[in-house]
């Protein structure tokens, strides 16, 4: 028994509430706009036990201050404290959920397996941790509590401590400082390369789907890899690397040459991400209308002979557009039946995003 139990019970209930609405959050993308630093604000109704109570609007209340009748009253409205007894709050409680927690909730909800970083793809990093105490050090690292305790010990042992006037004066010998140790830690590195088809057939809705989906994929991968890097490539008939903002806002017209993106992806990987140090995750979203079957053949060749050998997995998501769904996904599936590294998913609309995320991430590569 104890508050700890009740507290975790409350948190479970709150998490449950998030879970209940989870698919709604994913598909509506309500909270993406609200992210602040590391946290995502999720509004949670203060869990209110229903009571028979008056509607606040008819009720009014009593206040204090200046102003004429008809002047608006500032501040939170509603009957005041004086209503004797606690009035359950009308306000909505916003709970900060970190990306980590968010990813965890998503993982639980979609039953995603934990990602296993590949073999030797980790490098060592050196970190400093302040864990020790030493009798010498710079003043800025003085440990007040430990110093005080030393001084107290000393003054009690020499008999100068007076409980009625408990004044403790530390001398130089009492001073204690924080000291650090270096810790060597293996760190797994990962990069996600997002590629998107921005040709004329990809409309706003399609891009929104890609945006939502990549947000969640990012959250999940970030949960597993500290210092996750992201790269963005857009392509129509030609490909170029862009920043995140451009990635989601650009609309080009023109044809589609998927190989252009794959070539650029290959170039980035070859130049910047040595495969023995990096876990590499390319994601490609398109509506599947490639220009020609020759180009598709070229893409398959690129994947088979180069990219698939280097990456943890290669994900292709085909978004259904108003012109229907293209041929590319079928071609890929034919070329790589039962491939471990190449994962394809069809995203027919917003409501299919969670399923698609599951398609991509349930392998745990």
């Amino acid at each position, binding site marked *: 028994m104890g508050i700890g139990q009740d507290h975790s019970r409350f*948190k479970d209930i709150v998490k449950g509430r998030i879970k209940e609405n989870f698919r709604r959050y994913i598909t509506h993308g309500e909270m993406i706009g609200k992210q602040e630093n590391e946290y995502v604000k999720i509004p949670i109704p203060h869990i209110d036990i229903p009571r028979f109570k008056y509607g606040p609007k008819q009720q009014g209340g*009593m*206040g204090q201050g200046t102003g004429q009748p008809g002047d608006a009253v500032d501040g939170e409205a509603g009957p005041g404290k004086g209503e004797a007894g606690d009035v359950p709050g009308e306000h909505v*409680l916003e709970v900060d959920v970190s990306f980590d927690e968010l990813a965890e909730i998503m993982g639980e909800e979609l039953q995603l397996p934990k990602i296993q970083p590949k073999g030797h793809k980790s490098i060592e990093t050196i970190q400093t941790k302040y864990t020790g105490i030493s009798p010498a050090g710079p003043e800025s690292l003085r440990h007040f509590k430990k110093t005080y305790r030393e001084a107290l010990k000393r003054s009690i042992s020499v008999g100068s401590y007076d409980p009625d006037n408990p004044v403790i004066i530390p001398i130089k010998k009492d001073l204690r400082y924080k000291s650090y140790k270096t810790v060597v830690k293996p760190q797994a590195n990962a990069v996600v390369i997002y590629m998107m088809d921005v040709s004329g057939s990809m409309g706003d809705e399609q891009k929104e789907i890609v945006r939502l989906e990549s947000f969640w994929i990012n959250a999940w991968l970030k949960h597993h890899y500290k210092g996750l890097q992201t790269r963005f490539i857009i392509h129509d008939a030609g490909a170029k690397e862009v920043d995140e903002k451009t990635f989601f806002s650009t609309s080009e017209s023109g044809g589609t040459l998927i190989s252009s993106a794959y070539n650029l992806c290959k170039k980035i990987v070859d130049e910047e991400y040595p495969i023995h140090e990096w876990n590499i995750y390319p994601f490609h979203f398109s509506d599947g209308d490639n220009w020609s079957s020759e180009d598709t053949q070229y893409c398959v060749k690129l994947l088979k002979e180069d990219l698939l050998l280097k990456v943890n997995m290669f994900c292709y998501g085909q978004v259904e557009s108003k012109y229907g769904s293209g041929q590319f996904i079928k071609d890929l599936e034919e070329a790589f039946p039962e491939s471990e590294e190449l994962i394809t998913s069809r995203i027919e609309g917003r409501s299919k995003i969670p399923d698609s995320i599951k398609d991509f991430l349930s392998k745990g590569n």
Partner: protein
Amino acid sequence: MANLTPELEKARIDIKKMSEGYGLDCFEVIFELITYDQMNQFAAYGGFPVRYPHWRWGMEYEQLSKGYEYGLSKIYEMVINTDPCYAYLMEGNMLVDQKLVMAHVFGHCDFFKNNQWFSKTNRKMMDAMANHATRVQRYMDRFGVDVVENFIDQCLSIENLIDRYSPYTTPSPITEELISSGSDPVLLRSERSYMDKFINPPEYVAQQRQENARVAEAKAQFMNPERDVLKYLLQHAPLKPWQQDVLAIIRDEAYYVAPQAMTKIMNEGWASYWHSTMMTQRILTDAEVIDYADHHSGTVAMSPTRFNPYKVGIELFRDIEERWNKGQFGKEWTECDNFDEKRTWDKKVGLGRQKIFEVRRDYNDVTFIDEFLTEEFCVSNRLFVYKYNKKTQKYEIDTRDFKAIKAQLLFQLTNWGQPIIDVVDGNFENRGELLLRHLHEGVDMQPDYMFETLKNVQAIWGRPVNLLTAMEGEAKLCRYDGQEFKELPLRPLGKGEEPEEKTKT
């Protein structure tokens, strides 16, 4: 037990003596020095170290600790109405704050002990709460956390449906009489006494008597609706023994807390009156004045929409003291309409102290405001009533009229500012349905909350439940039968009409 530092212990002894000198009469007060986390924990538990397991405490705790971590709120003091009286001081507060808290606590404790509305509370509630916790925990172990917790949620939904005045009254003689007079069965005439037990078999007579008593009780119920809905459910709802126990626990605790809600303004006002009196007259050192003033003004600050019981309470007590010192009461004072004379009125009767001690003994918030809130007080404290304006969708100042302010305040205080609901019938329409009645006082209930609450009542009652109320000027019978919620319109209630008939229209 008391773990005060020598410095605090000295302050405690001084302040205790001082409070006795002023005439305060307390139970023994035990102060404990606790950390902020313990403080949040105890506060989440309503001041008690142990409560039955429930997520609601966890929510309180979350909010208190978040508030404290972000520096938004801080609890300085907590005191429990028990004998001996327990009070908590927070570790690391300034000495001047601790002294203020102690003086404040002695004020509360005196109030707990002497205000008549507290005379029926259980002073050993610490033990009772711990006992409740053990019992609920045992039920959870046996029947499952979810099952018991869900039932607690349902009970908490109606925990405010008690009759706050019932501890101070005796059952109405009419009810008793009705039940006893109605229960005599009609006996057949027997000429020969030895034949009597055959003509009127005793078992049959007993059975008849029981049956009649039941009918009479239902009748009495009808004429005398039960305000203590929890009690009615305890006695009549088909509850399992553990459910009955849980409901009884919640009812007990609701009755224990009730007087605190009934005297919030007075209690805080009284405690603030005494901390300010003791601090400023006797305790403060020169160096502490600024900190004290800062803290005290924070305690009694008002904002446009937040009504502060500390402020209204302390000002009213001071106002009463001054008026009774100057003799500003009685026939002569009321009948005087010369403004100048009234302003300089001072008969030097010096009854102020005596009067406020009487007031703290006899009054509760409703009677306190009703009797002592004066127009002068409202004007000098710049009080107003605000209302929601549908056109501008804002809360606006409605009026500064004294009568309106008083009416608004009394409305907010009556029945904790909550709708009054009672049980009219437990066999409504002769189908074992429950009929509740909302005594509509001009303000509608919030429909979504009403519906959810009705659902919970239905879950406890087991059969369909009905609620008479009014929405936007139209009388309604709301009904929930376990599956769907219905609102049936009614024609306005005629005088002396039995509520039962109204549904037939």
